[in-house]
């Protein structure tokens, strides 16, 4: 399984949350500021449209005023061609917005001899030129600018047209009818005109700044383009034909509203060549024109988009900074943990000399490191102590084992011990308990005829018992070899042992000396459990206890010597209480009766066979339960003097 570290998880979680929040902020910011900008631009657009229309109206109004005042002047002035020429030149010089001006008279009304009289002043190559309108090809009184003013009897603005009469330019003309008193009657006398050049109008309108690619256009009362940044449209297209051509039905609705003299605002999707736009329109009532301002949406929202980009970039930078910080911090938190893990693994594999990394933070990780350090030190101390203790114990155990080996080594182990002696047969065994005990046995010739054998059991266990046993055995041999009787031997040994025996250790002893010529056996017993006498052909019986005290406690103690006679084939079985008190798993004892019963079934068998049989029986009884005491046995079978032995 792949492990995901705390640092990585923390970083991913925090960064994911931050990213969501950040995205939310940028998005919200964009939407809200977009809405603000749009609503602001609605006002701006309307304002701009108003300002533009006011500006145009102002110009056109000035033009109208000039024409109006000329018409007014002509009503009762003395008119001469010279005056008209001066008037026309003065008007053009003082009104740069006027392209040309004409004073067109009714046929024959100025001079009954002249059909045409219409002096026209206009601008041509930065100079003021003049001509007289009217010819066979240009009957001016049939022109719209003349007819409409005359017939409607009021001042009018014409539709844009290309003037072929004199100016040879695209223009709109303001026409004012003027009157003169003829026979006391106010009679229509002609039309005063003032032209504006659409090119000039266009250049004036194009000064209105509507973003980079935004623009203003003017429509006539029938929807014809009067002004547009695209000169091809002017006079050639109406908004309706253009909408048809470009397949923008919404634009026809806009055109209809504009022709009807309404004002409003419209968002248009995907206008050809421009894209999404906002469009504001309003009428110029005096001329029945309509003005529209086109805002490209992209440019309008460029600020918002830019702002959003900036916010997004700042956000991204912040996010990256946050990411770096989170990774740094979480790395800082887990770095010591990772170090600790490495050290912990090494410590776990037994290397207690690993140096715990110094972590100085005062947080949980720092505490962990301190605890870990303490644990490692304690562990090291503990292991050192344990090693010392184990070594110590092993040393003591080893010494105890050596002590036990020495102890066992001083007991005779070689059987048969006297192969040249056929008068008797002796065999002994000692089965040491786990703990060092104090059982002992020994046998030796006191002289040629007298064979001494003994079994003893020192109270308690351990090294003191082993020492006491060794001392006892040595003392016994030394004393017995002086040729004393068993009783005095024990008395002497007891006295020696009891002297300075503060610890109250004691030893039970059974010691017998047999005359191998006669079978006469003398023995003494210092508190030892009675041996069994196996008389050939009879049931085994206990050697009667003398009830004399254990040795080593009271110095002035006299032990008595008893005598019995062994016949050839008789055996004496001496043992320690390890035999009868051997326990099975349920703590039942082997017991005296069981021993006696077993010995009864054996008959007169050789000493080794006798001891082995008892040993086998004990082992069968205990069934492998742990042995709590030394088990020591000694058997001596008397064969009789040399002669009898051979005979039998």
């Amino acid at each position, binding site marked *: 399984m792949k492990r995901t570290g705390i640092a990585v998880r923390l970083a991913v979680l925090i960064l994911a949350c931050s990213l969501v929040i950040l995205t939310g902020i940028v998005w919200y910011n964009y939407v809200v500021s977009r809405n603000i900008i749009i609503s602001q631009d609605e006002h701006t657009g309307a304002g701009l449209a108003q300002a533009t229309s006011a500006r145009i109206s102002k110009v056109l109004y000035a033009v109208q005023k000039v024409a109006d005042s000329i018409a007014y002047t002509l009503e009762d002035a003395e008119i001469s061609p010279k005056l008209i020429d001066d008037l026309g030149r003065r008007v053009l010089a003082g009104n740069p917005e006027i392209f040309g001006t004409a004073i067109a008279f009714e046929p024959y009304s100025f001079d009954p001899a002249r059909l045409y009289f219409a002096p026209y002043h206009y601008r041509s190559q930065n100079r003021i030129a003049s001509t007289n309108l009217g010819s066979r090809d240009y009957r001016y009184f049939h022109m719209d600018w003349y007819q409409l003013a005359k017939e409607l009897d009021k001042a009018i603005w014409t539709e844009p047209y290309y003037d072929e009469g004199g100016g040879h330019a695209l223009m709109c003309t303001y026409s004012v009818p003027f009157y003169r008193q003829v026979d006391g009657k106010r009679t229509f006398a002609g039309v005063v005109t003032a032209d504006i050049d659409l090119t000039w109008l266009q250049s004036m309108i194009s000064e209105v700044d509507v973003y980079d690619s935004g623009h203003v256009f003017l429509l006539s009362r029938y929807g014809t383009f009067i002004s547009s940044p695209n000169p091809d449209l002017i006079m050639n297209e109406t908004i309706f034909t253009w909408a048809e051509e470009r397949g923008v039905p919404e634009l026809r609705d806009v055109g209809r509203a504009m022709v009807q003299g309404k004002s409003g605002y419209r968002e248009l999707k995907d206008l050809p060549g421009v894209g999404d736009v906002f469009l504001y329109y309003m009428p110029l009532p005096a001329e029945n024109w309509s003005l529209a301002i086109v805002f490209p949406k992209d440019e309008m929202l460029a600020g918002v988009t830019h702002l959003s980009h900036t916010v997004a970039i700042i956000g991204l930078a912040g996010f990256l900074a946050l990411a770096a910080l989170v990774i740094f911090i979480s790395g800082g938190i887990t770095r010591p943990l990772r170090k600790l893990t490495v050290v912990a693994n090494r410590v776990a594999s037994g290397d207690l000399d690993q140096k715990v990394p110094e972590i100085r933070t005062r947080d949980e990780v720092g505490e962990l490191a301190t605890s870990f350090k303490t644990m490692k030190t304690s562990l090291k101390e503990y292991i050192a102590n344990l090693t010392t203790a184990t070594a110590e114990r092993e040393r003591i155990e080893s010494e105890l084992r050596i002590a036990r080996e020495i102890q066992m080594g001083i007991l005779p182990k070689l059987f048969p011990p006297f192969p040249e002696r056929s008068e008797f047969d002796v065999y002994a065994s000692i089965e040491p308990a786990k703990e060092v005990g104090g059982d002992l046995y020994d046998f030796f010739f006191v002289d040629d005829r007298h064979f001494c054998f003994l079994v003893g*059991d*020192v*109270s*308690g*266990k351990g090294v003191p018992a082993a020492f006491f046993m060794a001392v006892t055995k040595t003392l016994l041999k030394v004393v017995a070899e002086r040729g004393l009787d068993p009783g005095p031997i024990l008395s002497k040994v007891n006295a020696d042992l009891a002297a300075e025996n503060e*610890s*109250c*250790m*004691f030893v*039970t002893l059974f010691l017998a000396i047999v005359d191998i010529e006669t079978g006469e056996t003398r023995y003494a017993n*210092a*508190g*030892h*459990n*009675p041996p069994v006498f196996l008389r050939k052909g009879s049931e085994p019986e206990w050697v009667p*206890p*003398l*009830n*004399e*005290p*254990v040795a080593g*406690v*009271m110095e002035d103690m006299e032990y008595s010597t008893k005598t019995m006679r062994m016949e050839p084939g008789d055996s004496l079985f001496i043992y320690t*209480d390890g035999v009868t*008190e051997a326990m099975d798993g349920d703590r039942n004892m082997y017991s005296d009766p069981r021993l006696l019963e077993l010995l009864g079934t054996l008959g007169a068998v050789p000493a080794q066979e006798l001891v082995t049989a008892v040993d086998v029986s004990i082992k069968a009884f205990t069934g492998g339960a742990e042995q*709590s*005491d030394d088990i020591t046995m000694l058997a001596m079978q008397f064969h009789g003097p040399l002669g009898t032995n051979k005979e039998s």
Partner: protein
Amino acid sequence: MDITNEQRGDWQIMTVHGRLDAATAPDFDKSFQTIQDVVPLKVALDLAGLEYISSAGLRSILAAGKKAHASSGKIVFAGLAGMVEEVFRVSGFTAMFEFYSSVDEAVAS
């Protein structure tokens, strides 16, 4: 093993139950230490409840006897029976100490 101590007149009475062997002998020694400084030390050991005594137990008793002797007092035994009595007898303790059939009898001596 279970040991109870009781004082009756100038007698210290120790009642021992269970087994007195190498494992429990130290407990007996400890219990005996609580009374060993009385002079003269007269102890009656009630061993009617004693099931088993090993050589280590005998040694503890001998040590107690020696202490009592040293303070011109004595240690006597009551209620011995069965195997325990046998061990005492075989070990020659019967020649060294006084035995009574009951504590009352021992205290009255």
